[in-house]
Structure formats: structure tokens, C-alpha cells
């Protein structure tokens, strides 16, 4: 019997300048190593949706207001950008940290993983 279900978003922050400079071989190698960690999580039944985002240059922002304002960006003035995320089931923060640590060792570039517990999660239905 599993403990109470707690979902964490593991948000991946890294320098787009660096990640976009990876050659295809470097990118494939990084993805393969991360894939191994994901397969382990999936085998444990703990892996939810995984998403990799396009660069912030492809992003659009809708600012909330009486009349929503559409702007380009976020412009990447900061050193690190949100590049993607995982939804992972973790019973404790320690387990989430351990999982993010596995991912961090697999990627070993200089970015960061932010762990954010989910308040609401609707898995949706996009098919496979």
C-alpha cells in the first residue's frame, strides 16, 4: 500500500545559450542519459508527463489585465531559462530531491532543478 500521493513538478532551468549550442550528438547523449532515469521512474510507476520546451525566442506571453496584453518573450535577460519539466510522484521532499539528483547527475550541465509540489493536477487526454 502506497503512502499519500504527492506530485512534484521538477522544473529544469539551464542556460539556453549553452543548451542551444549543443551539437546533435551532445544533445542526443544528454537525452539518452536523462531517458535512463525516466525509464527507472516509469518502471516504479512514478513518472507523469514529461515536457521539453522550445527556446524562449519561440515563446509568447499574455499579460493578465482587463484587456489581455500579448507580448513576445519572455526575453532571455536572465542567465537561466525554464527549459522543461517532469511531473513525478514522490512521497516526501527527500525522495523528490533524490529524484532530481538522479536527473542532475545524468545531465551534469550547470543548471538547476526547482522542485514544486503540485496543488492541482489534471492529467488531461492528449493520447499517447
Amino acid at each position, binding site marked *: 500500500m502506497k503512502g499519500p500521493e504527492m506530485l512534484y513538478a521538477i522544473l529544469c532551468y539551464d542556460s*539556453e545559450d549553452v543548451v542551444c549550442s*549543443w551539437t546533435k550528438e551532445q544533445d542526443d547523449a544528454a537525452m539518452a542519459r536523462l531517458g535512463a532515469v525516466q525509464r527507472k521512474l516509469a518502471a516504479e510507476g512514478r513518472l507523469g508527463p514529461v515536457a521539453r520546451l522550445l527556446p524562449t*525566442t519561440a515563446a509568447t506571453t499574455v499579460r493578465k489585465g482587463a484587456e489581455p496584453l500579448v507580448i513576445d518573450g519572455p526575453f*532571455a*535577460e536572465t*542567465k537561466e531559462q525554464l527549459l522543461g519539466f517532469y511531473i513525478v510522484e514522490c512521497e516526501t521532499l527527500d525522495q523528490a530531491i533524490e529524484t532530481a539528483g538522479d536527473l542532475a547527475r545524468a545531465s551534469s*550541465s550547470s543548471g538547476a532543478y526547482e522542485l514544486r509540489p503540485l496543488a492541482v493536477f489534471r492529467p488531461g487526454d492528449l493520447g499517447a
Partner: protein
Amino acid sequence: MTDLAWIDAALTAARPQALGALLRYFRDLDAAEEAFQEACLRALGNWPRKGPPRDPAAWLILVGRNAAIDQVRHRARQQPLPPDELISDLEDSEAAMAERLDGSHYRDDILRLLFICCHPGLPATQQIALALRIVSGLPVRRIARAFLVGESAMEQRITRAKARIAGADVPFEAPGPVERAERLAAVSAMIYLVFNEGYSAAGETPRRAPLCDEAIRLARLLLRLFPAEPEIMGLTALLLLQHARTPARFDAAGAVVLLEDQDRALWNREMIAEGLALIDKAMRHRRTGPYQVQAAVAALHARASRPEETDWAQIDRLYATLERLQPSPVVTLNRAVAVAKTRGPEVALALIEPLESRLSGYFHFFGVKGALLMQLGRADDARCALDRAIALANTAAEAAHIRQHLDRLVPDTDP
């Protein structure tokens, strides 16, 4: 990823910014390149031990600059020393440098670097070679291979280009708004040249395909510098959408596969997604430009899951817009392909016939003309046009493709 792979990627990423700043400092391409090389060597020795610096580009600029100053000191001891604070406290200087680099310097440095490479005094091939050497940092050996010339010939070409730039009056000050717009257009054109150099030869010389990747990298870099410029979004989208088709453009024997015969499952979905996102964003700005229009055409092809679903009427309208923005017989020729789909080969043929004298040396003109004549059942005229196309083909794959069309004509005339 290993440390070394990460450092390699970080050095590649930091190169335009670091080299651009060193060029601002030394005002000499060779000096800036030497300083950057030295800084990279020191990074390889230093970063694995101490970990990556907070800001790799700032680190490289500072270390490269100091190394070059040291050299000057060695060569001429009587030279006045640089101010101590520049070299004594690396940590603080790095932080201060990073602070300043976040601003407009960063953008101007890279833009200057790109602009110098597409100096109007240089022929296009030298512009491309210089950009690949200076901005991308490709080794001369690889550039030479991409252009199918010997290494020493390419070395000479690059040296000549540098000498020409050293002799020209290259502005090192921050450009004003008008000049910046002009530079941006020149840099965009240079990036498109790099791309086409790789794209046109992709089937024949797979070794040139990395030029397409490099052009996309440069376009993305430019877009990061000008994230709200719709034409740069358009350029980046155009390159991505065109390059996405590369896996389907040639068959196993290296023969050309036409757009409508391509296996769309082979198209690169990731590049298409990014290209579509960018062109959609660009169009919202309502500041149409030639790259955006061409990207919009490519997007219509990318959005059609089968060739029959292609919105040819919209493509016809887009090419009409392009004819207005950038009139050229080649644009009209492209429009004729869409017109043939929507209004039939006869109308299309009437559209291109007046272009013949201006496109008399253009392979695609006779290819399109031959195809239209074939559709109209005028076999003899078609053969004549296709023969001329073969004579003008740039690559063996192009010639072979036209020969296939000719072969289909044979039964009509030679039973």
C-alpha cells in the same frame, strides 16, 4: 555529459560574445582571435578543477584580454602597464563585467562581429568563409571541405578577407538606429547565404549539411539579440522549416525527391514546431517582410499532412505579396507553380513566358517550363525545355531528376 563536453558547448556558446568584446577592445580580428584562443586554453585547464565560472563569456573576455596584455608586456617591457584593477582581482572584475555585459554592449559586440564578416567590400564566398571562421569558430579544414577547396586555398581566402577588412574603414562604435537596421539586413542576408550554401548541395555533398545547422544557430543567435524583430523570426522560421525537409529531399540513390513526392513522415517535427511557432509570432506584428513571407509559404507546406491538402491559393497570394516587396523573376517563377495548381498550366505558362530572356541561364526556369508543357501535352516543346534544364543543372542530382521527366516523354515520340 562529461565535463569536457559541457566546457566545449559553453565555449561555443560564449564565442560570439567573447570574441565580439575582444574585438571592441583590440580592434583587430587576429588579435581578438588569438586572445580568445588563449582564454579557451586556460578555460580547459581551469574549469575542470574550479568548476564553471558564473559567466563563461565574461571570464573568457577578461582572461583573454589579460593574456594579450601580458604578451604585449613580454614583447615590450617599456610599454606602460595596464591599470592594476583590470588584472589583479579576477572574481570582482568578472562580476562587474557580467553586470555590464547584460546590457546593450553584448548585442552591439556580436552584431559588430557579424557585420564585419558581411562587409560589403567582400565577395559573398569570402563573407561566408569569414563568418564560419570568426563567428562560428569552424576550423579552416572543415570550411575548406564544405567549399570543396584545399585547406591552403581557404586559408588564403580568409587571410585576404581579413586584410581587406583591416584596410577598410570598419566602424567600431555602437551603431545608430538606421545603421543598425542596415547591418541587421546585411547580417540576415549573410546567414541566409550560409544556409543556401549548405542546402543547395545537401544531396550531393552531405558534408555541407552542417552549414545549414550552423546558419540556424546563427539565426537563433540573432533572434536572441533581437527577440521582437519579426523579420528575424521569419528568417529563423524559414531556415527551420526548409531544413526540416532535408531527410526527405533525396532518395536512397541521391536523386531529388520533389516536395509533393516527399515522405512527410521523414520531416523533422521538432524543427517544424519551432518554425511554425516563430512564423505565427512574426505575423502578429503586422510588419511583413520577405523572410516572413517565404517562411509563411514553407509553413503552409509544413501544415499540410498530405500534398493534396496544400493551400495553393494562399501560397499564390503570399508570392504575390513577395513580388510586391521584392520583385524578381525568380519570385514570379515560384508563384507560377502555385498558379499552375489553382488556375491550371496554361495560365502559369503565360505568367512565366515573359521571364525567359531574364532567366535564360536558370536551371529551375526550364524545369518548371518543361513540367508545364508536359502537363499541356506539348511533348516536343517540353523536351526542348528539359534539355536546356539539364544543360544548366548545378548538380548531378538535378540533372538526373530532369532526365526522369524526359524518360517519361519518350513513349510519346519514340514508340
